[in-house]
């Protein structure tokens, strides 16, 4: 813990931090608290006071088959997309880190997908993977009806996984690359002197030293898959077919804003919020411990 030099002036400090605190209160804490309030009460559709109903909303939510479907889909989506993303981005980072000729070009281009909005990604992939246009459906000429995300739930699922991963690979790639480049060159050289070849060094040296980055990205990716996926789903599958891609965040939107059932949406929001907070919390704890080992 190094000595920090500070200024005197509590009023100035308070004034400086006030804007952010006010904003955070109005747009984060109050809505979060209100969400809890709504989840625990029933709002009459025509106004008037809310009635405290305890965990009734939660019971309704948790006993809804459709809800569990969306949970299942969300978790599967998170697992598939995150695995795909982390494996591919790690590989790409390891390749680029070798600094073969032209590596700057690769580093430059690999990052671009991050800049593209989720719905744009969704639309692009919707075209590429469309059942009646694009490219992939060329397979259907040889094997009729093999690929049809409009009808086949699994095809639709694969579509959104690929779209999401494409974007997240770009983001994760940069962090992995930064992590690899933070490994001091002297350590790599020492390992080479010890007789370890490129692949050996990757396994014994670079991967373990990347562990903090890995866990950080693990949680970022999982969180993003719960959150950023909305844009993709809305543009491509709308939750279908037959709710095969009905992610939790999408369901909240359709229940709350299309179905106008705020209490239900609020209860679902609380569950989703708890899930996300737990994940982030777990990561920070775990990473803290790992990082301290250094």
């Amino acid at each position, binding site marked *: 813990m190094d000595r920090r*030099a500070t200024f005197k002036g509590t009023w100035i400090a308070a004034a400086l931090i006030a804007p952010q605190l006010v904003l955070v209160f109005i747009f984060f804490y109050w809505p979060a608290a209100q969400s809890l309030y709504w989840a625990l009460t029933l709002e009459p559709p025509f106004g008037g006071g809310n009635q405290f109903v305890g965990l009734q909303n939660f019971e309704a939510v948790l006993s809804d088959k459709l809800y569990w479907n969306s949970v299942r889909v969300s978790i599967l989506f998170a697992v598939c997309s995150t695995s795909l993303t982390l494996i591919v981005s790690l590989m790409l980072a390891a390749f680029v880190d070798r600094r073969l000729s032209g590596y700057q070009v690769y580093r430059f281009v690999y990052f671009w997908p991050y800049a593209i909005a989720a719905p744009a990604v969704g639309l692009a992939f919707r075209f590429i993977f469309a059942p009646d246009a694009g490219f992939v459906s060329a397979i259907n000429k040889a094997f009729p009806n093999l690929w049809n995300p409009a009808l086949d739930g699994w095809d639709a699922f694969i579509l959104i996984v690929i779209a999401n991963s494409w974007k997240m690979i770009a983001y994760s790639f940069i*962090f992995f690359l930064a992590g690899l480049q933070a490994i001091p060159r002297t350590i790599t050289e020492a390992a080479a002197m010890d007789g370890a070849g490129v692949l050996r060094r990757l396994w014994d040296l670079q991967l373990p030293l990347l562990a903090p980055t890995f866990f950080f990205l693990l949680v970022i990716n999982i969180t993003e898959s719960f959150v950023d996926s909305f844009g993709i789903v809305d543009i491509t599958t709308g939750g279908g077919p037959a709710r095969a891609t009905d992610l939790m965040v999408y369901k909240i939107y359709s229940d709350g804003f299309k179905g106008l059932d705020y209490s239900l949406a609020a209860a679902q*929001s609380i569950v989703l919020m708890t899930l996300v907070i737990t994940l982030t919390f777990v990561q920070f704890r775990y990473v803290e411990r790992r990082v301290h080992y250094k």
Partner: protein
Amino acid sequence: MIERTPILDFFTHLAMIIGLVLAALPIYIVFVASTHDLPTVNQVPMPLTPGADAWKNYATVWTKSDFGTKFLNSFIVASLVTLGKIAIAAISAFSIVFFNYRLKMVFFWLIFVTLMLPLEVRIVPTYAVAANALSPVEGLANLILNGPANLLAFVGLDGVARAMPQLAIKLPEWNLLNSYTGLILPLVATATGTFLYRQFFMSIPPELVEAAKMDGAGPLRFFKDVLIPLSRTNMAALATIMFVYAWNQYLWPLLITTKPEMTTATMQLQKLVPGPLFGQPPVWNEAMAGTLIVMLPPLLVVVFMQRYFVRGLIQADK
């Protein structure tokens, strides 16, 4: 590279090229699709060379979707979010790192926690607040004023509670629907920038602060003369991230704007498709033209700012 590994290098190159294709291909396809006419684009598979209808498609989709207005909106929102985020992050991080007061860590954690919950996860209540932005202040004030009464009622002393004067503050209703403020403020409220700035400020050597003190500079002087110039790389990285983030916002603008003249470019993508996959297919060449137009600004920002961005991230990562 330490040793000579020609075979491994070959495969590495191969893999990287495949990666390059996979990264760039979708963008290329979108571009090509936007240059064909409708029958060509609906061919399976679509030809990979650009067609001749580029300008026609762009012009059509631009006017049909009124992209002029939408772009302006997106640009205003993204710029103001970026500026707001940077300004607030800088001063908040400054307060946390360079001052010492008792509630400092409390405030820090209060802000830090917001990182855990992105906007999409709390759309429902945030929307309610946006409908009446002063309601939290009003609510909190009323809660505090009526606190004793509420507490008494809670423990069952209804009679006593009722006897106490009922205080109520009523603030004017401030509806953020269909307004720039509504589009901008909720996006500025999270802590990403503050966290990055804090990491950077903590890497400033303490002697620099002490030298400034000896030179007679107060905190604000130090902030302006020393911290801001030194954080230029940081700022560039943060500005890029924020601009792209704000421009690409989809769910929140969808909720907060209902009038077409307030919608953003990214939102417009939804209008390009009549329905989900199992509905009627979109007019693909126009849809792809629209996608390309919407994709371009943030992509260009990233391409140009990438030099600063990667450097800033690596610093923050440490």
